[in-house]
């Protein structure tokens, strides 16, 4: 009997059909991969399973019995444990308290029996091979340890089904291996494990069956992974075979670098960073989560202090103390976190797209009219094919892809000479993603220097000209991109792991 079965679930949000007739079956004693591109509906499906969202139609059964959880609390009580992508720990509390957070006492006024909780937590820590004192505050743990604590927390609920949403995103490969060893043991104990990941290597490493979602529909429903190969899975995810990039390697422009870092060190922790981006060039910056890539971008923008080395823009030695100064130097930054850092969701499309040019468009008294801004950013938005009812539309109502287009558009409107693009394809559909890749190329062709940060190797190989590999807040090396996925990815991984081995 299946531990968890999702049957024909549909879910629509205003303007978007997020899930359409989706099914999935998880069995005890097996690890099940849930795959799909960003925006394919994975998170929505998890949220429906755990009761955060309500399905419009369809049903969910656990061990044959229909269940309908009203909230994560009920889901947990029903034996469905989830480890979410976001860190969901109370960092000031101890490890044991976090693991046992919902079982601190029978009722509100019960005393917390710390020794008992510590003992119980220690059991799970031991199971996870996590060698920390249960009374340690979570804030003192490493990211990987926190991840394990979250897993312990989900396990401690006697979960028969355990869903892990991108558990390895912030782990090093060796840490991931530890995690997999534990997952295998849990699997052997009969737990049904759902595993969401972008890293296909991991999926093939640990999973037995797979469900692939594409645009809110099943591209495959609980197929055995043994009979599939990597290309089959990729084809299901993106609807076509993974191509070796159709773009030819571009000729390197011989111009002088627009931005050049020389032995640059920052208060964020970067050490001796040297790299250069030329006009017309797309420089990729690759590294695992926590390697310091976004942090480097932000440091260059003036959000962290400079402690050594120098920054040259267009050959001139500069000090950048704020984003405003960076903008004046022609440097723009498309954030990976669109909602928190990229856009002002409360405001209109026009306000978001025009924010970088207000100063320039205003008259001597600082006045400016919507029409002025619209005439300036309108063509850019049009060129980027931003679909919006009107420029006055609140941007929070647009789809992820259109939002991303606006966050790029504002820098194009500002006419920046160097655009730093951080994870451009997070949470957007495939069509827009392809469009964005073309756009980045177009920008480069027209002479803009582009610094591309992405964790998606395929994207990197497809778009970048050269790839700087970063780890531990240092540049580990530079790989020329000849669009040969195998060669480039091996070279990049070699640079990252070479250091780890040493």
């Amino acid at each position: 009997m299946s531990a968890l079965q999702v049957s024909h679930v549909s879910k629509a949000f205003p303007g978007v059909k997020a899930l359409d007739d989706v099914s999935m079956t998880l069995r005890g004693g097996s690890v099940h991969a849930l795959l799909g591109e960003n925006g394919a509906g994975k998170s929505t499906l998890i949220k429906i399973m755990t009761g955060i969202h309500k399905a419009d139609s369809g049903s969910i059964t656990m061990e044959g019995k229909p269940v309908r959880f009203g909230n994560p609390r009920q889901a947990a009580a029903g034996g469905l444990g989830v480890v979410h992508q976001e860190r969901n720990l109370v960092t000031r509390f101890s490890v044991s308290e976090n693991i046992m957070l919902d079982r601190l006492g029978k009722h509100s006024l019960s005393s917390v029996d710390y020794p008992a909780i510590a003992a119980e937590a220690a059991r799970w820590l031991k199971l996870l091979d996590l060698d920390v004192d249960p009374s340690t505050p979570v804030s003192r743990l490493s990211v990987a340890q926190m991840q394990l604590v979250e897993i312990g927390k989900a396990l401690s609920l006697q979960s028969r089904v355990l869903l892990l949403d991108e558990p390895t995103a912030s782990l090093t490969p060796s840490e991931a291996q530890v995690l997999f060893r534990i997952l295998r043991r849990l699997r052997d104990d009969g737990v049904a494990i759902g595993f969401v990941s972008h890293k296909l290597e991991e999926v093939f490493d640990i999973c037995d069956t797979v469900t692939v979602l594409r645009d809110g529909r099943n591209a495959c429903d609980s197929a055995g992974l043994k009979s599939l190969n990597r290309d089959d899975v990729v084809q299901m995810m993106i609807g076509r075979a993974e191509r070796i990039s159709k773009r030819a390697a571009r000729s390197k422009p011989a111009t002088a670098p627009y931005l050049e870092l020389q032995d640059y060190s920052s208060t964020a922790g970067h050490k001796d960073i040297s790299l250069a981006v030329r006009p017309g060039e797309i420089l990729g910056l690759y590294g695992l989560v926590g390697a310091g890539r976004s942090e480097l971008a932000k440091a260059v923008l003036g959000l962290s202090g400079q402690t050594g080395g120098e920054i040259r823009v267009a050959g001139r030695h500069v000090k950048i103390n704020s984003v405003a100064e960076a903008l004046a130097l022609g440097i723009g930054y498309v954030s990976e976190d669109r909602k928190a850092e990229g856009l002002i969701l409360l405001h209109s499309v026009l306000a978001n797209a025009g924010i970088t040019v207000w100063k320039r468009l205003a008259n001597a008294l600082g006045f400016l009219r919507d029409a002025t801004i619209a005439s300036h950013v309108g063509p850019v938005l049009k060129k980027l094919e931003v679909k919006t009812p009107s420029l006055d539309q609140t941007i929070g109502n647009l789809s992820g892809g259109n939002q991303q287009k606006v966050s790029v558009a504002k820098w194009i409107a500002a006419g920046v000479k160097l655009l730093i693009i951080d994870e451009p394809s997070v949470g957007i559909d495939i069509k827009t993603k392809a469009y964005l890749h073309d756009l980045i190329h177009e920008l480069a062709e027209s002479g803009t220097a582009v610094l591309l940060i992405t964790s998606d190797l395929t994207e990197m190989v497809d778009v970048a000209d050269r790839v700087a590999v970063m780890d531990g807040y240092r540049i580990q090396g530079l790989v020329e991109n000849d669009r040969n996925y195998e060669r480039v990815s091996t070279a990049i991984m070699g640079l990252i792991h070479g250091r780890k081995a040493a």
Partner: protein
Amino acid sequence: MALSFTRIFDNDWVGPGLVSLAAIIGISIFQPSFLSPFNIFVLLSAIAVNMVIALGQLVIIGIGQMNLALGAFGGLVAISFVAVMELYGVPPFVAVIIGFAIGTLAGGASGFVIARTGISAFIITLAGLQIFKGINLGITEAQPFYGVPQSVKDFGNLSMLGPIPWLVLPMLIASIGMWYLFTRLRIGRYILAIGGNRTAAELSGINVTATVIWAHAISGLLAATAGMMLVARLQIGQPTIGDDWLISSFAAPVIGGAVLAGGHVSVAGTFFGVVIIAIITQALVLFAIDPFVVQIVLGGLILWAVGINRLRELRVAKLNERA
């Protein structure tokens, strides 16, 4: 050794505690009468009431909100407490229970509205402040009730043991109770968990609605306690009781190291925060400092405490980063 030394200094109450100690020593050198039994008695009476008030705000700070209606709760309970005794001849013991009930209900009601509607606590308690203060004025027409029984008066003005007033007793119970609540009781841990990371608390299966209501009800209960303690101390049911609680109710917890965003509070730190404010209030009187300057000093004190806390936070963050 060095490590444990820094550990001690990381405790919230150590800083304010040392400042209190230094202030007490300093003042008593210049003013030996500062440590006279009667002055200790007076100081403790003031500290007792203000500590309970500060605890009432502390529990709301812990959950990451603020309660502007604290004083209005206290005032309403104070006059109701005296009114039932004066008008209906209710025995003090029963009147105290009625007072507790009113405070808890008022707090619970405002917690209910906050939790169920999701409107910010600032707005709801601002409305609550108007409503409860309005009811207070409507009932009393701003006239005090005088019918405070002798037993209640005695409680507010007699000493329990040497220079220790009876008023210290409810403060001790409340302080130890709140300390136990925050460190040992499920509800206290849930309050801090929600203040520390609301999403995590929610996803972990904590009933946020119920916890918010609990926190506000506890706040109301403490405000009620403080209101009735003040009746005992002032020997009169003044409608103006509670009007001036707001500033000190925030100042003491903040001096004591509470994080305004929620999730971290210190009962001991708050106690020393109250002590520092009480000592400074006294010192200004003792050294005959121009009454016009008093406000300036109080404002400066809050800024100073905020600055110290900020520095400490930064230092702790740095330590964590290194570790």
